[in-house]
């Protein structure tokens, strides 16, 4: 009896001890997941990637008013081509390699990723394949890992998170407008002052001078994560060119990025672990335009102009068992991407003579926006999501202010952990809140269609 008792106690102790054997958690936040490898347990070269074929559709409602009345509205066309309101597209197809170049030395790791899909990265700037990430991380200094190269900047959750675990197909309006940066040489105002004879369809449209930023920059980052009980506290400081990917610096100005997050980890590991995270970020720099409308002088300037560009935000994410939630508030000051003239497709000739639709930038504008997201895993295979986002563009100029809001209803069906189908229905609205309902701006914006989208995502 005594022996049985002792064995029971021993077994219970062993069970308790074994229960304490927790799986090793690879640092599960975006800074660590993207910037480091599991020390001593990484491959020399792990090949990976993902493919995102998709279908999108709107009703292709035409512009109701303005110089391009009756023509296609940019907001009802499929990106990035802007030539059709519906169709198939391989949005992303990325192939990468990552690991520890010398497996005996886990203190140095690398990350390489290239984009083969059809999107704002590959569509602009020539070439059909673009390098999006190429970085090396040095893990020699405790508390201060150093990452150099081109990589995702520490910032908004929607931009920083791995795109292959994004719960939706399209970005929120605020992220798309303020953080997925387009780089221009001019502010787009020159099409209005160019003599009519020099401006034809596509002739002088202001377009991006290369790929979108893809939430990335070239530079150097110091970062690390500190664990205290169930909490993980992370920081990142980065200095970059402020000029996106595939190009060097253009103005001798540097971008500064600051990031902090604290997360209570509930369990799991990797990009889909359970936890509650609070985060805040800030970035500041300058952008140089070769030509712009000088409001103070009342003329179009062809001298280089430097403009401050600041973005900051605060947010939270939550994931536990079947529930997911997120919210973020973003503020912007300077260099606001301001859509196109009359809502037309860039390069489209106006119905009257002399004007070609261009992309526009407001060098000294202000904007803000926010989003909330909730999700529920009905089964292991089916997850339902809903997101509401608001973007207030050009809040500092009443007649230029535009408000965009979108309610997105989503469903994700997981064929397995690495393959899923995403379905989205976006109920989209836009208005010029300080202008009359029958103003051309509001007539144009009232033509913004709802959008349906379906996407297959396979990670390998």
């Amino acid at each position, binding site marked *: 009896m005594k022996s049985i008792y002792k064995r029971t106690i*021993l*077994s219970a102790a062993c069970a308790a*001890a074994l229960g*304490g054997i927790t799986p*090793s958690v690879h640092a599960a936040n975006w800074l660590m997941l993207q910037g480091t490898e599991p020390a*001593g347990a990484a491959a020399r070269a792990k090949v990976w990637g993902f493919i995102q074929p998709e279908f999108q559709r709107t009703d292709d409602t035409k512009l109701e008013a303005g110089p391009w009345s009756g023509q296609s509205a940019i907001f009802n066309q499929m990106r990035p081509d802007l030539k059709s309101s519906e169709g198939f597209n391989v949005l992303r197809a990325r192939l990468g390699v990552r690991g520890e170049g010398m497996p*005996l030395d886990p203190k140095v790791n690398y990350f390489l990723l290239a984009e083969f899909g059809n999107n704002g990265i590959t569509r602009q700037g020539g070439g059909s394949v673009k390098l999006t990430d190429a970085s090396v991380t040095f893990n020699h200094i405790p508390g201060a890992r150093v990452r150099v190269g081109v990589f995702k900047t520490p910032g908004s959750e929607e931009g920083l998170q791995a795109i292959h675990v994004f719960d939706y197909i399209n970005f929120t309006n605020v992220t798309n407008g303020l953080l997925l940066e387009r780089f221009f040489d001019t502010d787009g105002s020159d099409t209005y002052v160019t003599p009519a004879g020099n401006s034809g369809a596509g002739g002088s449209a202001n377009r991006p001078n290369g790929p979108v930023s893809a939430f990335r920059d070239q530079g150097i980052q110091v970062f690390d994560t500190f664990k205290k009980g169930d909490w993980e506290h992370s920081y990142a400081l980065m200095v970059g060119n402020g000029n996106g990917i595939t190009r060097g610096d253009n103005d001798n100005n540097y971008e500064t990025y600051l990031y902090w997050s604290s997360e209570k980890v509930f369990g799991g590991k990797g990009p889909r672990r359970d936890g509650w995270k609070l985060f805040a970020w800030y970035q500041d720099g300058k952008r140089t335009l070769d030509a712009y409308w000088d409001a103070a002088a009342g003329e179009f300037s062809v001298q280089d102009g430097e403009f401050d560009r600041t973005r900051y935000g605060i947010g939270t994410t939550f994931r536990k068992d079947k529930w997911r939630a997120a919210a973020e508030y973003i503020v912007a000051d300077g260099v606001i991407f301001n859509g196109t003239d009359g809502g037309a497709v860039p390069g489209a000739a106006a119905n009257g003579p002399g004007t070609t639709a261009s992309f526009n930038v407001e060098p000294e504008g202000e904007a803000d926006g926010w989003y909330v997201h909730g999700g529920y895993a009905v089964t292991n295979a089916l997850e339902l999501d809903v997101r509401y986002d608001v973007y207030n563009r050009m809040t500092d100029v009443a007649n230029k202010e535009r408000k965009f809001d979108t309610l997105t209803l989503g469903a994700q069906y997981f064929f397995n952990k690495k393959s899923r189908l995403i379905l989205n229905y976006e109920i989209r609205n836009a208005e010029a809140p300080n202008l009359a309902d029958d103003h051309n701006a509001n007539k144009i914006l009232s033509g913004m269609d709802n959008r349906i989208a379906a996407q297959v995502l396979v990670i390998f």
Partner: protein
Amino acid sequence: MRITRRNTLSMLFCLLAGVLVLANPARAENPFAEVKVVLQISDPNPFKQTLVLNVANNLLKAYGPDKVDVEIVAFGPGLRLMFADNVNKGRIASLASNGVSFSACSNTMRNMGKKLGHPPELTENAKVVPAGVVRIIDLVKQGYVLVKP
């Protein structure tokens, strides 16, 4: 101390146990194990690290730490598992606290040291043996079952 028949038997029992332990110097931790397993890791594939630790954990769960003797022997590229800063060091410590032994090949350490410029730093739970493969052969001779996950 008063010498009684009971005390005498206890001392004899302890002496016998001590002799048994000395007769098997390689495995002193658990001389009464009913199952003895040596796990080999010599593969560069990082997934094998997780696998070998999982197997050790499963053996402990299946037989109970008091009934199974598990030793993990690492040599060649598999020695990375026992590096001091290996991401699995927490699991290694937990398994070691439950009686799992970790043996690191000295030959491999010497060769790695030539490439690194210094010997690799190992987890405190690892003990260095002259040669990993010889260690495995010795354990097999002692009745251990060799498993290479």
